[in-house]
């Protein structure tokens, strides 16, 4: 081969020269997360009283409730990201990466919810698992999002990944009400929600409620912090993939020239 239009790519700068995924803002956020987590430990394990019925097991709820709320929030963010990717003109991959990052965090949080919920169930109900509507829906949702993450790893171009996973991300939203309704028709015995029930007043001790509030703040900060870092890490990974292809092409071309 005698092509002469090869360009030296090796020492060309790649976009911005940023190392790592941290910025000033995320570092501050990280510190705030650590501090509120410390608060949560202090209030959850120390200051808040034991419950009359549930005894010390009530402390599990300071992790159980915030993680499930955040997991659902994370999945809502995934759905919004999927919708924005699919229905905006630009089809920006940023939406896709945010959706993916949010789903990853949601799955982790939901795993925590299920794990600590089982411990709580064993202590309070005497069994690890009850076949009730909310538990069963949550379990199926958990598996569905593991499937969503698997779809993201199927391979192909970034655009293919984004389109496929966006469709799955939206289909799961279609699936949630169907699953929930059918399981509810099947059976239901989960403890009614104590904070977000419909009658408006909150049936909880003040210090317990405050501990729960600290938990929600702590896990929300953790979620945002993880989301920012993970989205940036995914962007870098995509960049690396693109870059890797360019470098390989350049190497092949250089071989051709050398011959």
């Amino acid at each position, binding site marked *: 081969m005698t092509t002469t239009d090869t360009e030296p790519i090796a020492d060309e700068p790649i976009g911005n020269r940023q190392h790592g995924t941290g910025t000033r803002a995320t570092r501050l956020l990280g510190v705030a997360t650590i501090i509120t987590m410390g608060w949560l430990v202090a209030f959850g394990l120390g200051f808040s009283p034991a419950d009359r019925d549930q005894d010390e097991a009530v402390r599990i709820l300071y992790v159980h409730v915030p993680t499930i709320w955040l997991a659902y929030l994370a999945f809502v963010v995934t759905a919004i990201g999927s919708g924005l990717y*699919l229905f905006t003109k630009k089809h920006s991959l940023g939406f896709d990466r945010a959706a993916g990052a949010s789903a990853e965090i949601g799955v982790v949080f939901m795993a925590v919810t299920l794990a600590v919920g089982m411990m709580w169930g064993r202590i309070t109900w005497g069994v690890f698992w009850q076949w009730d509507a909310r538990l069963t829906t949550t379990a*199926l*949702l958990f*598996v*569905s999002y*593991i*499937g969503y993450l*698997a*779809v993201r*790893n*199927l*391979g*192909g171009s970034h*655009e*293919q990944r984004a*389109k*496929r996973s966006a*469709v*799955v991300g*939206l*289909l799961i939203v*279609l*699936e949630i009400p*169907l*699953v929930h*309704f*059918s*399981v509810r*028709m*099947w059976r239901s015995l989960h403890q009614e929600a104590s904070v977000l029930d419909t009658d408006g007043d909150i049936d909880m001790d003040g210090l317990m409620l405050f501990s729960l509030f600290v938990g929600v703040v702590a896990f929300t900060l953790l979620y945002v912090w993880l989301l920012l870092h993970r989205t940036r890490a995914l962007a870098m990974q995509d960049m690396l993939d693109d870059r890797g292809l360019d470098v390989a092409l350049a190497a092949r071309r250089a071989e051709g020239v050398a011959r």
Partner: protein
Amino acid sequence: MTPTARWRIARLVAAKDLRIEWRSRVLINQVLPFAGVTMIMFAFALDASDVLERVAPGLIWLATLFSLLVLVQRAFAVEADDGALDALRVAGVDPIAIFWGKSLALAAQLAVLEVVLVISAVLLYGADVPVGGVVLLVTTLVAATAGLACVGTLYGGLTAGFSGRETLLPLLILPVVAPVLIGATRAVESALGTGGVALSEGWPWIGLLAVFAVAFGVGGALAFGPLIEESN
């Protein structure tokens, strides 16, 4: 595109799929025997015959779901192997019509499978079909089959042509079709009068199955075009 034209193309796609199926005999030689052996395995696992009679409706649908996974893989292996799906797209065949056509072919195969499974439940598990329950039973089969075929086609198209699809499909499909398993099992229980369930208790479940079929029929038709456009 007019609905009649779309329907005509869908019928052609379905006929193509069923012709391939008929010539290769995969349904008859492999999927039906697989479903049969599954029913026998259930009997080994659950042993007592009164238990088997009690859970027969659930086992019919579990065997259907397992066989659905096999059928879906088959339906899209046929398309992906020689780039047939791309050829259809290049030929300008409407993706919604492809979706309906493939769903229709899958539904036809599922229907055969379900009838065989119901018969095997009667023969092997001692379930009996009361005359009064036949209408409910047939309605359940139709409604559940429609939903399963749409979900199967949608997720089959989603993973078509990718190397990990054999292992990924069950993970994607099973959580989605959980409502069908619940609804169809309860409806068949009341159609067969299993455990003294009244016939009238079955009909509300048909509503659930119908909503499911419509939701995934519409959602699938809308999503299918963008999905197969870029699959390689």
